[in-house]
């Protein structure tokens, strides 16, 4: 009896498997299919909540934006048929008759202008992507801040919100409204009140820092911090001998303990009803979503209003944050559920999602009702999960290609068989520029991933991170050594010596052991990559940069172009490095003892440690100078030996724990400002260069740089604009010596074999462009080199017409 039951169960299990297997396999492999491998799984398809690469790889094909790019990278209409710009106002005319489809292919609704308003509402709620909106759309930042204020439960929380602080400290936007600035004060009972500016207490710089650190590290005393930050530079609040914060006007000094009490006792009391009314009016105005700069004028007319005249706004529309979304559907499934499964997603893009088995495979099929279906050539796209980042798998990937399972691969030098077969050939004559195998081709990319990596010279390595968070932030230096390093890096000549003295070419040779033979290919001599920004005549930003370089260095433009072109090291100049180091030595020798230690925060794995060690040894050696016959080492760069795990590195690099850190920046929109803005005091990299807390007086060079960036941003004519940005960048690298541009991953030449017809895909580093499969065709066999040459010639010829 039991035996029979067992076997019937088995038959059942087997038949279930067989049934599910048969039902689909017969349909596969019809039409043009593209198969590839992928490394990281998409975690969600909710494009209003994420823009991570692994997610956009899947959702980019499912939904279209207002605009797209063509194969040359110029902006072309997609769901918008045309648009006009009048200063800050952009009007888009939406394509009529485009349908939202459900996963089963049934029509759900029509794509209308309101869909962009809906998606913006949601995208604003997501901290991961709302920066893309708040940098452009009028009142969006204020809207977020006002929402945050409205969500606060107690007065203490309200006081700590940026919205309130902005009001209380006379945030620019409120100042314009002509209200009196109100500052907080401590009353007799120890409660904090907001009175007039005359009675307000103020803090010295030290107290401000103490408050800032205490806040950021405890994560709980936000009101304290914000209150401190709002104080002006007077001495009513100071740090006493024991390191507590003291108040001159208060009856007792506030220790950390008391501060916590005070925090809960915060009460908002308005000095005048006028101020209160003004505040409430501002709150009501900014909480109103209708005041945010997006409006559906009618079903097919959409209007965006930006903060300023930003011509590059159009390129930001390539981001998924500006994709449309249907409000009814989201209401049906809920925002959290949206994009979590195939059927909880609406489609209007070139492809539909058929299978989404994470850790296994993703299958996309052509959307037959797509508005531009004739330009979608791939019927099926099959993406299979496999760890291709591991160099030991490269040979395996190649065999997958050779068996026809995938449609292309990059030949890696760590796969010796493949390298011989495709690149060098059996006689060893082939090179990466002229591979031996007829199917292999030299795959060049000027812009790579578009993420530009910099080495920061941090003149304000904030040791309090380490003091307060010893378990997370780790350094191998003592507090005194850190301070000495900061002091040394404040010296301009020393920074210049570091910039000129880093042999990046040598460092590259040591690094990037994997798939590049010519490792210098990664190098970039500019922060803004080549091919990223061009003027109306197709002249590249880097060409403008070369002109600036030529002018400053008294050389011809051709010479300068050689120096500034990516793919080689045009910055390193050891003679100059030694000159500047000698100058720095003379300036510092009386006040400092040599060598001054500078800490480099490098990666944690064994390979990187050995690369870094080699690079640092060379750097240190190149910076040695001879003074009166003796060799002097002014600075000694040391690797942070306490970084041993990925988390250590993440903390060290994200909180800039180190004098020298490496960080990369990917562009948000197609304008050099997206890169160069990061190096201003309000920019994302301020703390990495140690400039976030300095004043104009302390660092006039920085103020000069900011002025250059601002001036360039004011310029609307493309050629002038690029020229001015080039000047600003030159200033940042060579005159203020803030950063050293280093490398751009994916840049340069590699050998690939592919069945994809080249020069068809959309081009661009902004948004989800690179992840769309529109326009792409795949052949049954690899595209031969001869054919590639022809296609390239046709592409180049078309460039002029474009």
């Amino acid at each position, binding site marked *: 009896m039991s035996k029979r039951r067992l076997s019937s169960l088995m038959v059942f*299990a*087997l038949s279930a*498997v067989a049934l599910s*297997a*048969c039902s*689909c*396999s017969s349909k*596969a492999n019809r039409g043009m299919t593209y198969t590839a491998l992928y490394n990281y799984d998409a975690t*969600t398809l*909710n494009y209003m*909540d994420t823009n*991570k690469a692994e997610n956009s790889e899947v959702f980019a094909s499912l939904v279209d934006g207002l605009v797209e790019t063509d194969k040359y990278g110029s902006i072309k209409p997609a769901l918008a048929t045309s648009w006009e710009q009048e200063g800050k106002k952009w009007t888009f005319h939406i394509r009529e008759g485009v349908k939202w489809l459900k996963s089963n292919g049934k029509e759900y609704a029509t794509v209308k202008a309101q869909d962009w308003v809906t998606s913006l*509402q*949601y995208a604003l*709620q997501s*901290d991961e*992507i709302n*920066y893309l909106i*708040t940098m452009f759309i009028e009142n969006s*930042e204020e809207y977020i801040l006002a*929402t945050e204020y*409205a969500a606060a439960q107690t007065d203490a929380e309200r006081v700590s*919100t940026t919205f309130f*602080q902005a009001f209380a400290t006379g945030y620019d936007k409120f100042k314009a409204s002509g209200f009196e600035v109100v500052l907080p004060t401590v009353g007799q009972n120890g409660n904090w009140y907001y009175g007039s500016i005359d009675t307000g207490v103020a803090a010295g710089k030290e107290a401000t820092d103490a408050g800032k650190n205490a*806040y*950021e590290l405890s*994560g709980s005393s*936000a009101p304290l911090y914000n209150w401190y930050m709002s104080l002006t530079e007077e001495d009513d609040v100071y740090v006493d001998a024991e390191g507590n914060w003291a108040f001159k006007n208060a009856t007792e000094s506030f220790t950390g303990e008391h501060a916590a009490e005070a925090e809960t006792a915060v009460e908002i009391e308005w000095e005048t009803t006028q101020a209160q009314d003004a505040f409430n009016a501002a709150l009501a105005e900014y*909480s*109103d*979503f*209708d005041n945010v700069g997006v409006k559906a004028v009618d079903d097919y007319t959409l209007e965006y209003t930006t903060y300023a005249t930003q011509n590059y706004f159009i390129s930001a529309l390539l981001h998924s944050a500006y994709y449309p979304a249907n*409000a009814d559907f*989201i*209401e049906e*499934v*809920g*925002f*959290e559920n*949206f994009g*979590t*499964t195939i059927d909880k997603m609406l489609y209007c893009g070139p492809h539909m999602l058929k299978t989404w088995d*994470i*850790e*296994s495979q993703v299958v996309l099929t052509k959307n037959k009702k797509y508005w531009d279906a004739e330009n979608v050539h791939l019927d099926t796209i099959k993406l*299979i999960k*496999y760890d291709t980042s591991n160099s030991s798998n490269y040979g395996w990937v190649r*065999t997958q290609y050779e068996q026809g*399972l995938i449609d292309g691969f990059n030949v890696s030098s760590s796969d010796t068989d493949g390298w011989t077969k495709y690149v060098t050939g059996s006689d060893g004559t082939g090179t990466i520029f002229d591979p031996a195998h007829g199917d292999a081709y030299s795959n060049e990319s000027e812009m790579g991933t578009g993420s530009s990596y910099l080495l920061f010279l941090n003149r304000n390595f904030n040791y309090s991170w380490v003091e*307060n*968070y*010893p*378990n*997370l932030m780790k350094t191998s230096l003592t507090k005194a050594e850190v301070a000495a390093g900061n002091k040394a890096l404040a010296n301009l000549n020393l920074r210049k010596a570091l910039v000129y003295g880093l042999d990046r070419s040598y460092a590259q040779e040591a690094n990037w052991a994997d798939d590049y033979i010519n490792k210098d290919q990664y190098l970039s001599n500019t922060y803004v990559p080549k091919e990223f920004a061009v003027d109306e005549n197709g002249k590249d930003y880097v060409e403008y940069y070369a002109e600036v370089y030529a002018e400053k260095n008294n050389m011809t433009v051709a010479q300068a172009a050689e120096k500034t072109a990516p793919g080689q090291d045009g910055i390193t100049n050891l003679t100059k490095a030694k000159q500047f180091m000698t100058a720095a030595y003379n300036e510092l020798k009386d006040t400092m003892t040599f060598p001054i230690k500078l800490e480099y925060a490098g990666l944690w794995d064994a390979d990187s440690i050995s690369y870094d060690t080699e690079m640092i040894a060379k750097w240190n050696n190149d910076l040695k100078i001879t003074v009166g016959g003796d060799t002097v080492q002014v600075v000694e760069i040391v690797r942070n030996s306490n970084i041993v795990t990925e988390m250590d590195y*993440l*903390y060290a690099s*994200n909180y800039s724990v180190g004098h020298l850190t490496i960080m990369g920046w990917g562009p948000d929109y197609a304008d050099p400002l997206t890169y160069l803005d990061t190096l201003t005091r*309000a920019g*994302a990299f*301020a703390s990495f260069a140690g400039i976030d807390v300095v004043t104009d007086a302390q660092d006039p060079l920085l103020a000069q740089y900011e002025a250059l960036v601002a001036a360039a941003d004011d310029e609307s004519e493309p050629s002038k604009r690029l020229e001015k940005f080039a000047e600003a960048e030159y200033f940042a690298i060579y005159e203020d010596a803030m950063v050293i541009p280093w490398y751009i991953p994916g840049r340069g030449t590699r050998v690939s074999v592919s069945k994809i017809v080249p020069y068809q895909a959309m081009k661009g580093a902004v948004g989800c462009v690179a992840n769309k499969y529109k326009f792409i065709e795949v052949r049954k066999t690899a595209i031969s080199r001869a054919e590639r040459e022809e296609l390239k010639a046709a592409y180049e010829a078309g460039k002029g017409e474009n």
Partner: protein
Amino acid sequence: MSDQQWELMTLLAEYMFIAMIALLLGTFVIGTICRIITKFMRKDNWFKRFFSRPLVVYTIRRTKSALITIVLVATATFLLLRMLPDGIYYMSYINKIPVERQAAAIASARAKFGLDKPVIEQLLDYYYNILPFKKSICVSQSLVQDPISKALIWKCSEYKDVYINFGTSLVIRKNVLVMDILYERAAVSFVIGLIACLGQIIIGYPLGVLMASKKDKFIDKFGKVYSVLIDAIPAIVYYFLIMILFQRVFSMTTFFDRYDMSTWIVPLISLLIAGIPGIAIWVRRYMVDEVSSDYVKFAKAKGLSKNRIMFVHVLRNAIVPLVRTIPTAFIFSLLGSYYVEKIYSIPGLGQTLINSINQQDNPLVQGLVIIFAFVSTFAYLIGDITTALVDPRVSLAAKED
């Protein structure tokens, strides 16, 4: 000791304290239930008669310790996960946010991931959520514009009744209920595991019998070498060898596709090859023990055929110690094999556990660990009970005297 170290020590102490409380509470609750039952048993009724069976008492005792194990595992996992830094959740985008809003963004990320409350409160919430009784949770919200203030407010668009609420995944499948992920993944692992398991039994048992009946002949030696090799070589090595063999020699695709039966073959063969010797060698061992018994001699004397003696008489006795492993193997197949899933890109539970730990997907890790703990403890429990049922030599009543 610096303030921070002191803080960490207090935190540790807090954790230990919570762990102790949890342990005490767990033992107390389960103990009380048992005591009530025992009290009730004093009176003579059907209940007492039922509970005076040794097997029932044994089962209850084992279940009690299994439950305690699960509570401990759940608590330990929870606390260990809370000791990890939380930067991973917001570091990827925090630099892009304007400076004045960063603090608020970090706070809201922490709130979203439930890390803003005190640890003890989080733990109590967690216990509440994993206790299996019906609770209605809002799984998804949408925005509506308030007619008066014109501000956008969140409103719940879908309520769902759940019994065990592990929360939603934070990273791997953002916002998807952990329970849904578990169902989906376990199904894949289970079907593959089940087929592999059956295959192992179907091939492993006869092989063991053959080895025993042809002791020291070729088949026996082959089986021994095979099992020694499988035990001695790390699994990953022969999994790769199998994969290369099928790929190079038979030109078969080794990418798993749930909907394409032919892609199931290679992973299944990998699992089979790895699992068979374990069964065969034990069957052989018990069979060899039995072959020298008197009843075998008697059967031989009676003139029964060798196959009949081996498969009908000897196997029946030899199988008893192995019975314990059968339900265990079936249940364990639910959890999948990490290596096989990883190599062939199979979306099963084994891979999910490793990936969720790597990406610090706390609710998913918690859910998975509980499932793994539950499955393991109950697999052994069922194995033990089956042994007790089928093996006459196990006497549970002995203690009663």
